[in-house]
Each structure stands twice: as structure tokens, then as C-alpha cells.
């Protein structure tokens, strides 16, 4: 999940454009993280040193690691350690952007370090993706704690589970956005939560994005926003909400209830008067899907 939020971070700080970010996400599967990026991430080398090693490599026929050792930037043990280190999603995304020429090593170094510092993240966090840390990133991204809700913990958990389910069932090639534009949305799939936490949850998107989202979840090629497409999207909502209620039941012992899902006009759902509404727009290659939770 940190990878997706690193993408959002790069977008929000205007370090990369939405178009280039999407291209880099598409390139992730064919991108190999190189020693330079690994050394920058570990703090063993600065971006300037990596650039110097690359410059040197253009003149001699040696491996990057050997050159870095010869130049005194790395020890052989560090090279071995880096090469066996886990190539987390943020590094793959960063490497893809560096390979595309959208980021210099120095810009990547700066962006990664400030992203880590802002969210108090270290390498272990990137591997473990603990609920507490992902919850904190989600919380600061959406500024949930400052808003008028006594249930910010539940809302963190809701979004956390939603993102995990997106990664598991739809794909990891998305970027959470901060501003939601609901103008193109006609249909909303809606499900109410009750039993000590009253909320209306929904998924909305324009017809094309909704159909593409359903195609991925159903693992079938769907072509229009018909009854079956709506059924598939509402089943995703039911699944994610179901797993949320199980988690809440296990963690705080609260037994929440879910109502059967409904198809509604998106305009009626955006007009719901709630104590607090969180909209979570998520950009996929096929369009933007907006998830909402409105606490009544």
C-alpha cells in the first residue's frame, strides 16, 4: 500500500505528472531495481555518488558494485547485502521513473527520503506493511483525525481494508487521489452499515470505469454497465464491507450489521447529509473509481 501512496505523494508534490506515473506503474513488472537505487534507499550512497559511479561505468567494463567498492562508496559486504535486499514496490516505481527519465537519481533520493520522513517509515515498514503504519499513512493522507468524527479509528480501518482488497482482487496498479470529481458518475452501488457505527458506503464511477472495474473483479470481459456489472461491483462492496465488519468484531468486539446492497443514482448518494463523509477516489489505468463512507 505504501507504493500506491508513494505514487500519490509524487503526484501531489507535482514531482511527476499523472500520465508519467501511470506509464511507470505499467512498466513495474518489467523493471529491475538497480544497485544505485538500492544504495540510495539504504542510505549507503548519495544520488551524486550513484551518478559518479554510472559515469565511471560508461568508461570501464566493470559491474556497478565493483566500481562503487573501488571508489570507496560501498564495502563488498554492503554490495552483497543490497543485492539480496527486498525490492519493495516503492523502489520498483522509483526505478521505473528513473529509467523513463522522469526523475534523476537526486530527485528520487529527495522524494523517497521526504516521503519516508513525513510518515516515519523505514525499510522494515515497507516490507511488513503493518496495519498501524498503513493506517497512519492513510490517516495523514486523508486528514481523517482533524475532521468531525469520533470514529476516526474505524474509518482508518475501513479504508485500510478497502485498499488491501483492491490490491488483492482488482490490482496494485492504482494511485489514491486526494480530490474527488463525481460529476461523471451516474450509478452508485450502496450498502449501509449499522449496529453502533451507522454509515452509508458506496462505490461510484462513470460507466466505462465501473464496467472495467467489474471486469477485473469478475475476471470476465464485461462490455457495458448493465445489471450484471452493477451486481459484480456491489458484490465487491459487500465483500470489502464484510471483511471490515469481521475485523471490527475481532478488534473492538463491536458487532456491525450490513444491509443488502442497492443501486442508486450517484447524485442522490453525493447529496446524503452525513456527520462526516470521506471520499476516496482511486485512479486506475481504466479510469477513476470513487469509494465513499458517510458516517450518519
Amino acid at each position, binding site marked *: 500500500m505504501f507504493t500506491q501512496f508513494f505514487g500519490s505523494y509524487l503526484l501531489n508534490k507535482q514531482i511527476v505528472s499523472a500520465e508519467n506515473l501511470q506509464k511507470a506503474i505499467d512498466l513495474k513488472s518489467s523493471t529491475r531495481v538497480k544497485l544505485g537505487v538500492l544504495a540510495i534507499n539504504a542510505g549507503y550512497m548519495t544520488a551524486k555518488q550513484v551518478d559518479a559511479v554510472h559515469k565511471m561505468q560508461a568508461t570501464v567494463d566493470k559491474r556497478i558494485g565493483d566500481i562503487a567498492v573501488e571508489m570507496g562508496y560501498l564495502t563488498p559486504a554492503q554490495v552483497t547485502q543490497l543485492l539480496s535486499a527486498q525490492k519493495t514496490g516503492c523502489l520498483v516505481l522509483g526505478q521505473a521513473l528513473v529509467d523513463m527519465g522522469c526523475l534523476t537519481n537526486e530527485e528520487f533520493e529527495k522524494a523517497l527520503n521526504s516521503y519516508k520522513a513525513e510518515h516515519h517509515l523505514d525499510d522494515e515498514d515497507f516490507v511488513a506493511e503493518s496495519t498501524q503504519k498503513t493506517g497512519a499513512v492513510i490517516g495523514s493522507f486523508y486528514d481523517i483525525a482533524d475532521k468531525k468524527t469520533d470514529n476516526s479509528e474505524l474509518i482508518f480501518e475501513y479504508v485500510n481494508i478497502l485498499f488491501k482488497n483492491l490490491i488483492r482482487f482488482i490490482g496494485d496498479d492504482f494511485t489514491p487521489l486526494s480530490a474527488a470529481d463525481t460529476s461523471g458518475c451516474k450509478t452508485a452501488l450502496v450498502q449501509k452499515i449499522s449496529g453502533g457505527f451507522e454509515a452509508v458506503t458506496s462505490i461510484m464511477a462513470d460507466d466505462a470505469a465501473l464496467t472495467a472495474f467489474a471486469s477485473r473483479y469478475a475476471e470476465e470481459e464485461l462490455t457495458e454497465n448493465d*445489471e*450484471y456489472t452493477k451486481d459484480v461491483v456491489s458484490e465487491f462492496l*459487500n465483500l470489502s464491507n*464484510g*471483511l471490515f*465488519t*469481521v475485523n471490527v*468484531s*475481532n478488534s473492538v468486539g463491536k458487532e456491525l450489521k450490513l444491509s443488502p446492497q442497492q443501486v442508486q443514482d450517484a447524485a442522490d448518494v453525493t447529496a446524503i447529509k452525513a456527520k462526516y463523509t470521506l471520499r476516496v477516489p482511486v485512479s486506475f489505468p481504466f479510469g477513476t473509481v470513487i469509494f465513499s463512507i458517510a458516517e450518519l
Partner: protein
Amino acid sequence: MSTSVSQAKVLICDDSMMIRKKMRMLLENYGITNIYEAKDGKDAVEKFAEVMPDITFMDIVMPEMSGVEALKAIKATTPKANIVMATSIGTEGNLTEAIKYGASDFLQKPVEEERLVKLLDHYFKEV
């Protein structure tokens, strides 16, 4: 169970067309051919009485009547019914309630084929 796989009747109760379709595929992969569907809790009770299935898969969150209510109604008339709750909302409260009313098993959604096969093996191979 004395019924063989090829003769067994299975009822899928779920309001989602997609889930019914996926479950049907998994059951067919297992060799079950007599598959019936119900789209809500009320429909489930009616179809059960009509078909008298060997195994019933029951979602919990459904319109008209919830899966737990349907379970209660079916068990009241057919105490021997084999009803497996298949749901994503497997909270302790829901499970305790379902067991109290006589559910024979629980299947977490999304349904994994491996888990379903194990469950069906349990029914068909344990004579």
C-alpha cells in the same frame, strides 16, 4: 452421506449473480450436476422445500430475508438439512448465531476452490 456426487442436489442461495455463477462453476468442476439457485432468503426457503437439496450454501446478507432467518425457517421444517453459511461477514456473532440455529459449516468468501473441495469431500466421502 449416502448420495453420490453425480446424484447430489445442491442449492446456492446468494443475491449476487456473480457469486451464483462462480459457485456453480466450482460445483460443476467437482462433478455436481443438479444445481439450483435462490436469489434471496425467501426464495431460498421456497426452493429448499421444492428441491430438498442434499447441501445448501447460504449467504447471510440478502434482501427479503437474511440467510440466518432462512436457515431458521428451513431447519424448523427439515432438521436434518445440511446448510453451509457462505459469507464474507463471518463475525463471531454471526457464526455463533448460525451454529445455534443448526448451520453445519461455514465458508469464508471469496470462496476458495481448495476449501470448497475439502468441505464437499467431507460430505461425500464420510459415509
